[in-house]
């Protein structure tokens, strides 16, 4: 019985693949963090993001459906990073601008690709 239940557990709890949209969003967000200087990261207050209402979710990224498109979104978003940094007045603002750019580029690439 124990062996039975363990094999059933293994099948019932099979690993779940994350969506391509999540990968694109995460890579974009992490990419923007990599761009930040160390002192900016120090100042970045993550606690403000613990509230689920503030969680990053550029819904438009859901339109992205292929690895190539994901790459294109990230490349285009990366191109604007200097402008974003110049315009932002805090690390949180920079992150928020990056996310907005990602969503905008996702929409554009989706229009181009599909």
């Amino acid at each position, binding site marked *: 019985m124990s062996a039975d*239940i*363990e094999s*059933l557990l293994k099948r019932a709890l099979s690993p779940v*693949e994350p969506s391509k949209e999540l990968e694109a969003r995460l890579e974009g967000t*992490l990419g923007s963090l990599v761009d930040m200087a160390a002192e900016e990261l120090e100042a970045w207050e993550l606690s403000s*993001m613990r509230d689920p209402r503030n969680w990053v979710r550029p819904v438009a990224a859901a339109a992205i459906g292929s690895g190539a498109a994901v790459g294109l979104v990230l490349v285009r978003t990366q191109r604007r990073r200097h402008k974003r940094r110049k315009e932002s007045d805090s690390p949180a603002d920079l992150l928020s601008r990056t996310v907005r750019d990602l969503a905008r580029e996702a929409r554009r690439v989706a229009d181009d690709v599909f």
Partner: protein
Amino acid sequence: MAAADQTDKARLDEAFSQLYRAHLRDVYSYSYYRVGNHHDAEDLTEQTFLQAYRHFERAQRESDGRPLRPWLIRIAHNLAANYYRDRSRRPQTPIDDAGVISAPHTTEALVEDRDDLRRILAGVDKLPDDRREALIMRFALGMDNREIARALGRTDGATKVLLHRAIRQLEEIVKRDEGPTEP
């Protein structure tokens, strides 16, 4: 000095990228089975990696060469606990649409098989949090006792007992839910 700092940060970022690529599926699977739906699992996964990035340097320094997967899962575990506390809620729908369960089945045997798996998941959902989490780590992520112990902040021995009791209790739940068997 500034150049050395940049090199260190680049090395750290590269190591973090590797960690991310290696364990995105683990964090997502754990999150999914914790919260029971893809929408919240995505948010939880995202938050986990953001937190991990923030504390990565220290974690790497203190890991002493040990794998960082348990640390990553511990972050997800803590965030999931906050998530429920902040929103005063538990999963509103049972976990039932992952992988094999959602696949279309045609023959009677396969339908029966799917029902077995559904019963198992319903049983897992009824377990106390620590037992449910231990099972998710063992069976969805394939973590060994030592890794689970580190993720849950327990000893190896206590983790072994926890897993044993989780499986025993799950067996009882499944048996009870099946109802009395014919003599």
